[in-house]
């Protein structure tokens, strides 16, 4: 709002200092993670379908401090301006709440994640099954605690399954951060802020196919291989959790 005076969060300076301290710690070869996990241990994953009744399908995911709701609408009529299409369309949107980050944000749409979510799911959905129509996937990040995009992707594929959209397989996604020689799986927001590089994989474990892979920062080839193995293994485990969540609903 334009009428509001300029404000600042009193915890800003404190956070900055803590981050500097932590950055020093991460340079060492051996350190413990703030939540007590080992380097190759994921946060406990909690997932449930049917978070919102108004949608065709929905899911809620909570991985440590990261909380996400995804609603799926459709298949429904495409926008009037759209050209005729034999295959269905997928429309994705990711937004954050204003209170999702430690300091209050704008709560606007996240264009980059929206596009990446679209790309990660596109390959898994059998678009031929709903010609001329659109499936909308809307994600809202309630709290951002790190590894947001992988959580959004996994949660979205669960919501698609809940909506009964035909897919080749569930898509599960996990990311790994690289700190010097250490590989840290499922990083928290603090860890992500200080990482040297990151690798994220979204895959369909039953078909052993990767729908999306992003790699940023400095990596050696050996490290990339190791990180991919680590991610794929975690994706497989996550997909099992998602599957059991769907079975629970069906039974």
């Amino acid at each position, binding site marked *: 709002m334009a009428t509001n005076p300029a404000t600042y969060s*009193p915890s800003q300076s404190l956070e900055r200092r803590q981050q500097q301290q932590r950055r020093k710690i991460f340079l060492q070869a051996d350190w413990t993670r703030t939540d007590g996990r080992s380097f190759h241990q994921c946060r406990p994953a909690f997932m449930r379908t049917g978070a*919102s009744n108004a949608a065709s399908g929905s899911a809620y995911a909570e991985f440590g401090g990261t909380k996400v709701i995804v609603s799926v609408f459709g298949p429904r009529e495409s926008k009037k301006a759209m050209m005729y299409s034999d295959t269905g369309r997928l429309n994705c949107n990711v937004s954050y*709440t*204003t209170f999702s980050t430690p300091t*209050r944000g704008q709560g606007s749409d996240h264009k980059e994640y929206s596009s990446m979510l679209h790309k990660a799911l596109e390959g898994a959905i059998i678009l031929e099954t709903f010609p001329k129509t659109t499936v909308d996937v809307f994600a*809202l990040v*309630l709290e951002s605690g790190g590894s947001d995009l992988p959580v959004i992707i996994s949660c979205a594929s669960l919501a698609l399954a809940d909506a009964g959209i035909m897919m080749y397989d569930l898509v599960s996604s996990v990311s790994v951060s690289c700190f010097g020689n250490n590989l840290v799986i499922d990083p928290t927001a603090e860890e992500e802020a200080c990482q040297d590089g990151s690798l994220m994989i979204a895959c369909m474990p039953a078909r052993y196919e990767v729908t999306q892979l992003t790699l940023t920062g400095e990596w050696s080839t050996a490290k990339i291989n190791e990180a991919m193995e680590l991610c794929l293994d975690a994706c497989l485990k996550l997909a099992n959790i998602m599957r059991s969540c769907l079975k629970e609903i069906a039974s």
Partner: protein
Amino acid sequence: MESSEGTGGLSGEIEVEAYRRLFPLPFYERHLLESVRPDARPLNRARDTTIALGPVASADGSALVKIGDTTMLAAIKLEVMTPSTDAPDEGSLAIEFQMPPICSPSVRPGRPAEVASVISKQLSDVMMSSEMINLKELSLISGKAAWMAYLDIYCLSADGCLFDAALLSAIAAFSHLQIPLVSVNDDGRVIAVFGELPEAKLKLELVNKEKRKLSLGSKPFSLTCILHEEYILADPNAEEESIMDTFVTVVLDSLGQLVSIYKPGGAALANMSTIKACIALTKSRVKELNNILSESLSEMEVD
């Protein structure tokens, strides 16, 4: 055949679900004749209501409220501002109500729902006029620094009575609000001392040692009713709201005093006796909501 009066030419057998979709109003009217609603509620009963306090860890105060399938998540973040010269010892309050596209099939990304800004305005009007929050309590250093409370309410699932649920979540979030301990550093900026080393805590002078919770005045609660012919339906869901279009929203505070009445147009004219009936219904609902809120507050203290 009773159904023929509403359906015109259609006679004989028709499936209930199809009848409901094709002739929603006659479908409802036949229920109303029996003094029951399709979801098995009596006309004057509100849906089950739950309040969960503190679901958002990164906020200073938060609440998740469910009225039936309508779900609201409210969170308050406190930031520091320089108070205006007109009111040097008062803080401020900024309320925003958001309807993200996840909440309803009718909301599309990039196009905020019209009703969201209406509810935003109604909420700030009610919060300000009920005087539940004493803005002077949000002051830190007179003329220099005061709290700006950003209250953001997200509708996670929209199934009718959005204003009622939003107001309840706002009140619950303020009841849960914990003001962080702060101090002033050398540059004159207010800094948080939470989680700081104990010796640093002693060195820095705390500005607001004794003001950790707001002393809330009488809290406003609301109930929306649908008026249809001679019937009054309390706490309608989205389906009922879409079929019958005359609403009355009554806001009362916990002492039973009237804060506001809102009747936005609609076909049926509300006469004095129906308005009075709505107020009576709201009175009993306020008691109910007050109990639910104090229950969840006492549960939190036990934890």
